[in-house]
């Protein structure tokens, strides 16, 4: 009786200690440990990145941790996560920084420890990362601007509702779209950009106000999934069916809206590929292989015409 209890206790203790020893990394086993700190994990985009990263990690036989703060404005929570991750001594580290400067100290510590760093999704204002794996947001949005220009025949009023005015993804997408409009349809009048924090209900309210305030409004662009769906909601509620709505990212609601013709089209990144390439790049860096400084994971314009193509189906995340 006592012997068997002791066995149970030992087993329990071992079970408790095992994950702990796994965390301390290199010294205990030969498996490589890759740590990814993302901008979050609750949005479908990050879920898709995680899917790509998990699949690649499994294929390569490495241990992967994937974490992110509760919301994409929790800069401090992300820095704490990053700090804790560095303390854990992974073999390689990938970071999608919410604030590229705030991460500097933790990254410097990782560098000191000889942990190779890869930036993904958005760059870091630092030369520590060996590579940046990202979508060129400005180029992708410029493409959206070009399509908007086509849709409107080069004239009319166009408004942008962006998901935030601070992060690079927010500003690059806003500025990229505006640059696209100015380049391809200088006749289009752009209204001042508004910001909805990516919240669907808030964005819908803003969209309604803008539509009311500007009866000649002909097109609207939302810089992420929440913004695009929010705009769509506001347009529907306003009873306008002649507005061209163009979005960024994908997701079920957006894909369905494009299929139903309520949304004209959208540009999307390829998050699954981003996850996969990020893990590949980290592993290459760990193995001291040559990696490119910037790796573009690409973007894609999709609309009702090409929605069902293999190329688009792989990139959109449902």
């Amino acid at each position, binding site marked *: 009786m006592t012997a068997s209890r002791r066995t149970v206790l030992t087993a329990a203790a071992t079970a408790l200690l095992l994950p702990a020893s796994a965390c301390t990394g290199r010294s205990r086993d030969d498996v490589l440990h890759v740590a990814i700190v993302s901008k979050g994990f609750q949005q479908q985009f990050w*879920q898709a990145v995680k899917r790509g990263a998990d699949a690649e990690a499994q294929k390569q036989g490495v241990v992967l941790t994937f974490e992110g703060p509760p919301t994409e404005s929790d800069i401090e929570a992300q820095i704490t996560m990053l700090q804790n991750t560095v303390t854990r001594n992974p073999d390689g580290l990938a970071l999608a920084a919410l604030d590229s400067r705030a991460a500097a100290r933790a990254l410097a510590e990782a560098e000191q420890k000889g942990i190779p760093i890869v930036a993904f999704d958005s760059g870091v204002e630092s030369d520590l990362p060996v590579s940046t794996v990202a979508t060129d947001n400005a180029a992708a949005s410029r493409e959206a601007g070009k399509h908007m220009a086509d849709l409107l025949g080069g004239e009319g009023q166009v408004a942008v509702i962006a998901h935030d005015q601070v992060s690079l993804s927010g500003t690059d997408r806003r500025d990229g779209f505006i640059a696209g409009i100015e380049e391809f349809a200088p006749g289009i009048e752009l209204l001042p950009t508004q910001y909805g924090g990516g919240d669907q209900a808030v964005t819908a309210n*803003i969209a*309604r106000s803008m539509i009311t305030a500007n009866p000649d409004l002909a097109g609207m662009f939302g810089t992420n999934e929440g913004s695009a769906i929010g705009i769509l909601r506001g347009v529907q509620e306003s009873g306008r069916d002649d507005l061209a709505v163009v979005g960024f990212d994908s997701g079920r609601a957006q894909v369905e809206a494009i299929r139903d013709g309520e949304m004209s089209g959208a540009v999307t990144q390829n998050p699954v590929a981003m996850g996969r390439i990020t893990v590949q790049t980290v592993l290459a860096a760990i193995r001291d292989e040559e990696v490119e400084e910037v790796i573009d994971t690409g973007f894609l314009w999709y609309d009702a015409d090409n929605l069902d193509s293999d190329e688009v189906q792989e990139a959109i995340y449902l």
Partner: protein
Amino acid sequence: MTTTTTENAPAPQRQSTRSGPSWRSRMQQMLAAGTLVLIFIAFSIASPEIFPTWGNIVTILYSTVVIGLLALGATFVITTAGIDLSVGTAMALCAVMSGLFIVNWGLPVPLGIMLAILFGGLVGLVNGINVAILDLPPFIATLAMMMVAGGLALVFSGAAPIYFEQPSYMWLSTGSIIPSVPNAVLVLLLAAVIAAVLMSRTVLGRYTMAIGANQEAAGLAGVAVRKWLLIVYTVGGLFTGLAGVMISARLGSAQPATGMGYELDAIAAVVIGGTSLSGGRGTIAGTMIGALIISTLTNGLQILSIPQEWQDVLLGAVILVAVFIDRLRKRRERTS
């Protein structure tokens, strides 16, 4: 916003032997209403062709619905001198529960809605137990619940939106029984009437104010303080549940990661409406006006294309003024 000399003499017997709002809170309520009218007139002058149109007024009303519902519940809690920081994420959790009940479990829409609202009541009840039975400070208890509810919303939804396919569910928000008035606005109106009756015509309202004014005295006077606090937080939770239903009905999906920050808008609406953060005084009409001030200001500034940063600055200033007026009154109260 000039102060009158008459408020130096608040005759105690006028402070309601009956259960209606006190003279003092009626004053602040009128002040808030006056502010709303002023804002409305100002924007109407600045943008005569667009701002005062019926279409835009509907837009303003529609954008008041969710914050308004949360603020109704918060009025009860704040009147007891409590606070509920969990309403935003609890709203998201209730939206997710509604999705689980209706989409995943296939329950009939009305039943699913009722269960989701009751689930909100359950979250409120847990808050109430923490505050009234375990004697935790409301700020801390509901802060913890904010995290718990936000986490559970992600867990129960698998961190992905749940999409409703039932047109009748969306109809609850976007349909129109009365032409060109979205049902969501009617729901808010109905909820406000219920809340106003609860607050001014029932034992619940009377005890809510008594507990907020002086918890110890209320207890000595025979009010079962713990029991009524439980009820107050539960009532607050029911409104949160309704807000969760209405936001997901509007969006056609339950968004698990939404809600953070909504609690602050709700508290702002309550405070602008004249409900005192130190308890004992609160009106539903004031809260509705407060919520309308926030949405009207936001809408008007957006229509004038004022940069968003300045919209935040102005809204913050309005809150400061509202709290300052509350302070001013309290100071006069003490010196008189």
